[in-house]
């Protein structure tokens, strides 16, 4: 019945390559009226007239009711509005900080975009510090802009962090898996020992455990879980848990 959905649905979970096409001939029902259907194309899918083209290689994902996107394992981050990322402050200039987020351009972060910050009471941010913030502006034609407060002016977990602990980089695909509501990887990892974790959509992960040794173990486990089935991962984690005890 749903022809557009149908042609998408049969490909869900399959690996697609750039140039693959979903063409939707609009179904003309018997009475001549054109039934309108809506689908939402996420990352990796682009509408091109009468068809939808894949533009990134990866797995086709679906979210009810009508969202489709391509899940790919790229490493370079492209800022998107509303996403939370870990940035590194590179310069202070005037009343903004320049923050490296791993994109093609540095993001700007206002002095005032911190909880409780006023013109008088400037936040204590040094060059090289880590900030966790959210994009309020991110599009291809403008310089991206970060804030460390939510719409109510609250920090809500954002701001400067990372006095100790370790920052490292993984693929964007892995980050998305870590951030998924019921992430299996994190669940498995939690069983080994307690640690603090900050995950940015830009592929940066910050970890802090009780000791340097434990921090390094978490880091290495996360890096290796990129290309593992859940079974392989579980056996590995189990071995580490036993060994580290």
């Amino acid at each position, binding site marked *: 019945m749903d022809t557009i959905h149908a042609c998408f649905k049969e490909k869900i*979970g399959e*690996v697609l*390559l*750039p*140039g693959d*096409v979903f063409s939707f001939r609009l179904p003309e029902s018997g009475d001549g009226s054109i039934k309108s259907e809506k689908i939402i194309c996420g990352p*990796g899918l*682009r509408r091109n007239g009468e068809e939808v*083209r894949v*533009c*990134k*290689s*990866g*797995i086709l994902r679906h979210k009810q009711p009508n969202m489709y996107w391509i*899940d*790919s*394992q*790229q*490493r*370079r981050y*492209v800022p998107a509005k509303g996403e939370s990322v870990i940035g590194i402050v590179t310069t202070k200039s005037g009343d903004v900080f320049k923050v490296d987020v791993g*994109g*093609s*351009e540095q993001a700007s972060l206002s002095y005032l975009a911190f909880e409780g910050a006023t013109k008088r009471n400037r936040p204590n941010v040094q060059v090289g510090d880590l900030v966790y913030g959210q994009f309020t502006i991110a599009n*291809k*034609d403008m310089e991206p802009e970060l804030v460390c407060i939510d719409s109510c002016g609250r920090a809500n977990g954002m701001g400067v962090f990372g006095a100790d602990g370790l920052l490292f980089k993984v693929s*964007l*695909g892995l980050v998305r*898996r870590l951030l998924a509501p019921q992430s299996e990887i994190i669940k498995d990892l939690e069983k080994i020992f307690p640690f603090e974790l900050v995950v940015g959509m830009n592929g940066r992960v910050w970890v802090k455990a009780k000791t340097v040794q434990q921090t390094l173990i978490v880091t290495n486990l996360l890096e290796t879980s990129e*290309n*593992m*089935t*859940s079974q*392989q991962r579980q056996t590995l984690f189990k071995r580490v848990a036993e060994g580290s005890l």
Partner: protein
Amino acid sequence: MTRMSATRGLCMRTMMELDQSCSVLREYGSEQSLLSKPDGSSTFVQGDTSILAGVYGPAEVKVSKEIYDRATVEVLIQPKMGLPGVRERAREQCVRETCEAALLLTLHPRSSVTVVLQVIHDDGSLLSCCLNAACMALMDAGLPMSHLFCGVTCAISKEGQIIIDPTARQEKECRALLTFAIDSAECNVLISSTTGSFSVQELQQCIAISQKASEQIFQFYRDSVKRRYSKIQ
């Protein structure tokens, strides 16, 4: 060195029928994401010919090269010996323009896409191997593309026989050498780069063969990406 591979090739050749022997793509392979620094990387191996490709982008662009409405593409081909010369520059132009046509550059204005191709070994069909490596590296980097592309080289021997994916030795002995890049959307010709003289019929035959061979390479791309994502549910 090359003697070995040549004899290997020779054994195989005698085993097969003469007119079939020339229409064989050498064994080929590729590895993606093998370098830690670049945003995308791949090696592509065709017989003994081997290219390593690294891609950065969309990344920061120099002000002097900035384009206001699209990304700037740069391609560098590094020869194994000595410095890149005029020949490399001509190849770079070919690969760059092909990448420009395949990439959706307007999605990342004022940024740069840099493709670096390192020749690891040249045993014929070098330009097509460069193209294949570049395409796989671009895919690995996750840059938005409207279509994929691949390269196929055909040699025309002195007897007028068409040899696909020739070795360096076959290239040396042939009368004409034609390299085409084929796009995955319509299987049309993206690049044509030729040396030697040939007839119109021969050109069209080579194009037709390249189009056939491209199907196999595109299938290979698909298989390797599938394998790569095989552990993610």
